[in-house]
């Protein structure tokens, strides 16, 4: 018997089935493109079909399926791998699914004559034909998926309803889907959900957690649910299951407890206002159904004893409802209601549903900004959450093991011919260490990815002397300021940075005093303003930064007095501050070798304004010299409400004209790194943002056709890599590149580890080249990207993303948190935001 026949035979004894709903509107689109055969792998037409799940939640295209950018780039169609470096064996968190080559999913369209309104009835009638359909079937009322092909293309069945009505059912084969097709991939992920549910794991958001194995952190009133981010994807050579450890952070206090403690702490007059300010926008979890909701408002007029209409029209009180439905007894009958607006379907114009939630049953999730700045809390959390490779592997093994061991889970997979196979390993390459170029020397860092020690007593490439500057401090911090000055001079000397004595102005303690002093003493000739702030008051910092970025554009450096109190660390702190100042003056600390002439590198990042809802902040940083040591930074704010940028044409034009001004020619090569792209947004980058960037080039001069590449940078990805060393698993060395197995066949992509992880598991950075007419070898693209990770001047070491992306991130951070307006372009050629 073939494998499938065996499954079918086994199928008789089993019960239960997978029910999947499909978007009928999507299906009609799918239909009109006649019989689509998918023998050659990906079917572009299939992306028109979206699979819905019961409950109406649309599965967005989180895997960015159906975007085939690789075929547009001829030089990587056959091979996209590099070749430099030393091979290293790498174990991944990817599992094969044991799919035989000929595996196919059969799709049928089912019609009923006479037509039946009730979906339940349609399901019941079709499913009554169990011997014909077999065990593995999925039907939503119109479309049927089977793992085996029926004998005939068109099958006629007859069923009789309970009311003795004879119904003719016609089952027509419409498609045979290979395992790599987008519809199949979505289908697999739905099966995967069923498998994980059988392991008592709950889906919260897009990941799965085990509420039954919580990890308590009582000293911080936090609970962690261990879990996994799991998905099935078509990777380079086969379909694999990827699993990464994830933790859900829950606060052990309910919203009611939060409200009560807030009430005791503050004035009852401003209670309502403060309560709303604190709670609106937060995500809460209700444990009776493990669902998360966003608090959109608080209704102070409704109590649990009030009633609401049920679906059948009868009225029931909230108290009774929760007792009946979930067997929960509410204790506080005077609490207000939280209001959450459920997400509406994409194109619906109907007003979305609103639900009332009981504060007593809602647990706050995530960490407050207060919690994040609590050093001890973050340390304790990291202990539990930041697993090193060995611990991570243990958790993965346990998951794989339970899928195999627990019968119900395994059978969900086997029913469709799937099984959890071996953990995949591959060969990566560790590229050569980059040399750091400073003024008179070249240094090869002693420890990989960190040249802070090597930099001591070495002359930086160049900076103007600092002769005209201002230092502000409060009256009682005068001594600290003097001390800092001396250390700065001592640090600057060996670096080749000449620092003159500044004008020191002592001010009173109040935040307004600092601003007034700045307004009074800063004239356009001043090169830099340094403020020694006595406390971390955001308002003070913001007002100084605003004035010095908008009204009087002068670079500024703010230092907290408590940083300067750490006596033993003064020299290293002073060195760091000195390098920051150098950058803010437009200086160049170090460089790396760039084996390409006339290259401009751009980094783009987008963030949301913290103060003004809906305003997005686009950061655009472009190199201005061929050594790639000077940068031009632009930030544009728009009321768009999304992370997709509309203003890239203007930014690109500005960057090219700046480059032209400094180099007297146009750049021959332009490489753009786009960070800040979330799952499901790839299509927008390819179809909406890239055209904006390219539209500038055709308009410049007629002969100008530079080689352009656009690369999407992802800091977070599910694949993880471990290296074997000394019979244990460790992080792969910095400079490891993976461009096989864990990549996607329809993309020109690679992973690069440029992060030095001292704790936990390293996060590989994922690069997806979505546009490239340069013909640059993949090897060079990879190594150039690695070189770019060495040029973030705020850190004498490697960073996780290319430097221009980190600069763009820092810029948008400053603007979205403190300035809230576009900074003056007079500061554009200095890294004033470090």
């Amino acid at each position, binding site marked *: 018997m073939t494998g499938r026949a065996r499954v079918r035979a086994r199928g008789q004894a089993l019960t239960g089935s997978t029910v999947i709903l499909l978007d009928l509107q999507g299906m009609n689109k799918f239909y009109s493109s006649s019989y689509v055969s998918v023998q050659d792998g990906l079917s572009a037409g299939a992306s028109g079909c979206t699979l819905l799940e019961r409950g109406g939640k649309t599965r967005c295209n989180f895997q960015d399926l159906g975007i085939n950018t690789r075929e547009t780039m001829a030089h990587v169609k056959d*091979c996209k*791998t590099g*070749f430099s470096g*030393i*091979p*290293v*064996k790498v174990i991944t968190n990817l599992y094969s699914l044991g799919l035989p080559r000929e595996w196919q999913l059969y799709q049928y369209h089912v019609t009923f004559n006479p037509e039946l309104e009730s979906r339940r009835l349609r399901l019941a009638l079709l499913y009554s034909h169990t011997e014909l359909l077999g065990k593995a079937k999925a039907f939503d009322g119109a479309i049927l998926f089977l793992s085996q092909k029926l004998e005939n293309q068109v099958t006629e069945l007859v069923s009789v309803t309970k009311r003795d009505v004879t119904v003719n059912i016609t089952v027509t084969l419409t498609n045979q889907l290979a395992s790599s097709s987008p519809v199949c991939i979505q289908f697999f992920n739905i099966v995967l959900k069923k498998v994980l549910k059988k392991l008592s794991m709950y889906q919260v958001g897009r990941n799965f957690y085990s509420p039954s194995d919580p990890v308590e952190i009582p000293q911080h009133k936090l609970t962690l649910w261990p879990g996994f981010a799991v998905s099935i994807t078509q990777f380079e050579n086969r379909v694999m299951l990827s699993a990464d450890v994830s933790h859900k952070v829950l606060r052990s206090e309910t919203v009611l407890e939060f409200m009560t403690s807030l009430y005791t702490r503050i004035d009852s007059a401003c209670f*309502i206002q403060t309560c*709303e300010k604190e709670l609106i926008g937060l995500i809460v979890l209700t444990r009776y159904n493990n669902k998360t909701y966003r608090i959109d*408002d*608080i*209704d102070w007029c*409704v109590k649990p004893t009030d009633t609401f209409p049920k679906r059948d029209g009868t009225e029931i009180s909230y108290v009774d409802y929760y007792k009946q439905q979930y067997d929960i007894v509410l204790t*506080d009958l005077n*609490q207000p209601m939280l209001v959450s*607006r459920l997400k509406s379907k*994409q194109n619906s114009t109907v007003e979305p549903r*609103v639900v009332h939630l009981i504060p007593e049953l809602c647990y706050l999730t995530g960490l407050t900004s207060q919690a994040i700045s609590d050093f001890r809390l973050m340390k304790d959390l990291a202990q539990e959450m930041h697993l090193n490779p060995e611990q991570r592997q243990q958790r993965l093994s346990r998951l794989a093991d339970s899928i195999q061991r627990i019968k119900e889970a395994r059978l969900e997979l086997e029913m469709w011919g799937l099984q959890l196979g071996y953990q995949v*390993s591959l*060969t990566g390459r*560790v590229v*050569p*260490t980059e040399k750091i170029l400073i003024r008179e020397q*070249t240094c090869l860092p002693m420890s*990989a990815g960190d040249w802070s020690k090597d930099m001591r007593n070495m002359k930086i*490439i*160049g900076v*103007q002397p600092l002769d005209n500057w201002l230092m502000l401090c409060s009256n009682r911090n005068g001594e600290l300021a003097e001390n800092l000055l001396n250390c700065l001079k001592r640090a600057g000397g060996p670096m080749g940075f000449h620092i003159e004595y500044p004008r020191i102005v002592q001010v009173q303690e109040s935040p307004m005093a600092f601003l007034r002093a700045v307004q009074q003493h800063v004239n356009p000739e001043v090169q830099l303003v340094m403020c020694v702030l006595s406390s971390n008051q955001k308002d003070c910092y913001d007002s100084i930064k605003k004035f010095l970025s908008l009204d009087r554009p002068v670079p500024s450096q703010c230092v907290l007095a408590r940083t300067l109190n750490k006596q033993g660390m003064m020299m290293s702190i002073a060195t760091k501050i000195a390098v920051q100042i150098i950058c803010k003056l437009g*200086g160049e600390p170090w*460089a790396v070798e760039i*084996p*390409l002439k006339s290259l401009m590198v751009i980094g783009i990042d987008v963030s949301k304004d913290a103060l003004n*809802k*809906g305003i997005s902040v686009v950061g655009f940083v472009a190199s201005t010299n061929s050594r790639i*040591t000077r940068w031009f930074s632009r930030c*544009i704010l728009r009321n*768009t*409400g*999304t992370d*997709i940028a*509309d*203003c*890239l*044409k*203007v930014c690109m034009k*500005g960057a090219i004209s700046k480059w032209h001004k400094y180099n007297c020619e146009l750049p021959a090569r332009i490489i753009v790194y786009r960070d800040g792209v979330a799952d499901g947004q790839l*299509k*927008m980058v390819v*179809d*909406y943002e890239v055209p*904006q960037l390219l*539209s500038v080039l055709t308009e410049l001069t007629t002969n100008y056709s530079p080689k352009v590449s656009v690369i999407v940078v992802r800091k977070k990805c599910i694949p993880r890599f471990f290296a*074997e060393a*000394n019979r244990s698993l460790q992080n792969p*060395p*910095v400079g490891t590149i993976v461009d096989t197995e864990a990549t996607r066949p329809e993309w020109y992509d690679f992973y690069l580890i440029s992060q030095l992880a001292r704790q936990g598991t390293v996060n590989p950075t994922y690069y997806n080249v979505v546009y490239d007419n340069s013909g*640059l070898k993949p090897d*060079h693209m990879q190594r150039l990207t690695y070189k770019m990770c060495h040029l973030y001047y705020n850190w004498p070491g490697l960073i996780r993303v290319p430097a221009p992306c980190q600069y763009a991130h820092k810029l948008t951070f400053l603007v979205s948190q403190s300035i809230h307006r*576009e900074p003056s372009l*007079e500061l554009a050629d200095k890294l004033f935001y470090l």
Partner: protein
Amino acid sequence: MAKGGKTEKETYNFPRNQKLIQCPYDRYHQIRACRFPYHLIKCRKNHPDIAEQLATCPFNARHQVPRAEIRHHISSCDDKSCIEQDIVSQSNNCHREKMNTVSMWQPSPCDEDWDKGEELVMEPKNNLMPGMRAPRSLPYSLSWKSSNMYCSVCNCLS
């Protein structure tokens, strides 16, 4: 718990970014501002004839304007403010130029030249950690080795 506040149950504090924008390809489509770019891409495919007639505003890619009207749009677009600073700063820049000294440092010539296709030939520094060694033979044959690429050992085209 204290009570008070809202008199009407219906007025909730929802984000005000719900202004609807008309689709340039189909006037019956009214789209929320935050979904607009996504809709443009989707709808454009279904109306290639209309897309042909429209030009994109250089200041904001959302603005799809008939070609005949694009000049007028450019001169009156709200988002034009993003280049105003460019114009102002260009005139201000002349006096600041003297402050931004461009360093005279030139790097020593690079070993490699990727424009010509020349790669690193010398033995690269090993970044592997003490317990690790490079495998002497690879677990399975690598697909890239058989392709038309430079052989990294003897620098020949294999």
